[in-house]
C-alpha cells in the first residue's frame, strides 16, 4: 500500500505512523502542508501515487482544506472533510448525536446575553461556556455564578471567533475527576484511556491529565460504534463522561485524535492497528 500522511507539524503520532508503516513494508509519502498546493482547473491530477491519505494536520483549517483538496481529486482520505466538519463544530456534533438519540450533556445555544443569563438560571450553576470551535480545552471556562458568566460572555464577544455571538453553554457534569477517551479505528473500538485530573476539572491530557488504561465494556463499545455511524469517518477519538444517574454521556468527538498516551499506558500500537484497518479497507 502507498500511504500519504498529510501533516503540518510532526508530533509523536505522525512520526510513529510513518515509522510503523515503513516497518510493515508500506510506501510512505509525507505531505507537508506548507509545501503543498492544488491548482484546480489547470491540473486534473495532484500527481500523488497514493492508495489513501491519512489526515494529520494539527490546524483544523488546514486539515479540512487539505481533505477537501484530496477529495476533489478523488483520493481516499482518513478522515474525510465531512467528518472533520462534524467533529470540529461542537454544535454540529451535538445536533447529530442528539438527533440519533445519543446522550449528550444538557446544553443550550443562545444568541443574546439576556437569553443566555435567563437559560443559565434554568440550567443551574455552575455552567460551562465553550467556543463552538476549539480544542485542547482552550477557552473552555466554568462559571460558578451569574457574575462570572457575564464576564465570560463579554470576553467571548471580543474574540475573533466567527461564532462569538453564539453562546454555547453546558451543564457542569459532575464526573469523578476523570472522563473517557475511546478510539474508533475502522469498524472497531479497540482501545481507550481514562483521563484523570484531580487538580483541574478539565480532563484534557494537553492540560496535564494523566492517562490510565480504559476497561471497555459492551455498552461502551456499542456506544462508540454508534457515534461512528452518526459522525462518519474512520479514525475517531470520542470523549465520554460517566454520570452516576444518566450513565454514559458523549461530550465531544475528535477527527484528528492524538494517541501518544493511549499507546504508552495500554501497550497498544494504535498506528499499526490503524494502518492494518486502512489496508483492509483499501483492498475491499
Amino acid at each position, binding site marked *: 500500500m502507498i500511504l500519504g500522511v498529510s501533516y503540518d*507539524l*510532526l508530533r509523536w503520532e505522525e512520526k510513529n505512523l510513518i515509522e510503523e508503516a515503513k516497518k510493515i513494508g508500506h510506501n510512505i509519502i509525507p505531505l507537508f502542508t*506548507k509545501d503543498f498546493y492544488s491548482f484546480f482547473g489547470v491540473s486534473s491530477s495532484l500527481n500523488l501515487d497514493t492508495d489513501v491519505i491519512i489526515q494529520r494536520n*494539527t490546524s483544523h483549517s488546514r486539515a479540512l482544506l487539505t481533505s477537501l483538496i484530496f477529495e476533489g481529486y478523488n483520493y481516499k482520505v482518513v478522515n474525510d472533510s465531512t467528518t472533520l466538519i462534524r467533529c470540529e463544530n461542537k454544535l454540529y456534533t451535538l445536533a447529530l448525536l442528539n438527533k440519533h438519540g445519543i446522550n449528550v450533556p444538557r446544553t443550550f445555544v443562545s444568541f443574546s446575553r439576556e437569553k443566555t443569563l435567563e437559560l443559565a438560571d434554568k440550567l443551574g450553576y455552575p455552567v460551562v461556556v465553550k467556543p463552538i470551535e476549539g480544542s485542547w480545552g482552550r477557552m473552555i471556562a466554568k462559571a460558578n455564578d451569574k457574575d462570572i458568566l457575564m464576564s465570560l460572555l463579554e470576553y467571548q464577544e471580543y474574540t475573533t471567533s466567527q461564532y462569538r455571538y453564539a453562546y454555547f453553554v453546558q451543564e457542569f457534569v459532575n464526573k469523578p475527576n476523570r472522563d473517557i477517551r475511546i478510539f474508533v479505528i475502522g469498524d472497531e473500538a479497540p482501545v481507550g484511556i481514562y483521563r484523570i485530573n484531580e487538580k483541574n476539572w478539565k480532563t484534557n491530557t494537553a492540560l496535564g491529565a494523566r492517562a490510565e488504561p480504559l476497561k471497555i465494556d459492551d455498552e461502551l463499545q456499542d456506544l462508540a460504534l454508534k457515534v461512528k455511524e452518526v459522525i462518519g469517518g474512520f479514525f475517531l477519538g470520542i470523549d465520554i463522561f460517566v454520570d452516576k444517574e444518566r450513565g454514559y454521556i458523549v461530550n465531544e468527538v475528535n477527527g484528528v485524535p492524538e494517541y501518544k498516551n493511549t499507546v504508552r499506558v495500554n501497550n497498544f500500537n494504535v498506528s499499526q492497528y490503524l494502518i492494518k484497518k486502512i489496508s483492509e479497507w483499501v483492498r475491499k
Partner: protein
Amino acid sequence: MVTAKCPICGNPVEIPDDALLGEIIEHECGAQLEVFNDNGRLSVRLAEQVGEDWGE
C-alpha cells in the same frame, strides 16, 4: 547533515539527513525552528506558534 543558519541568532544549525519537512529543531539559542524546503534545499525558519485552531 545539512548546515543552515539560525534566523534568530545567526549561528549554524545542523539538520539531520533523515529530517522530514516540518521537523522541529530546538536550537542552542532557544529558538524553535522548523525544517522547510527552500527552493530545493533544506533550511530552517522560526516555527509557527500554537494557533487558535490547533488541536485534535
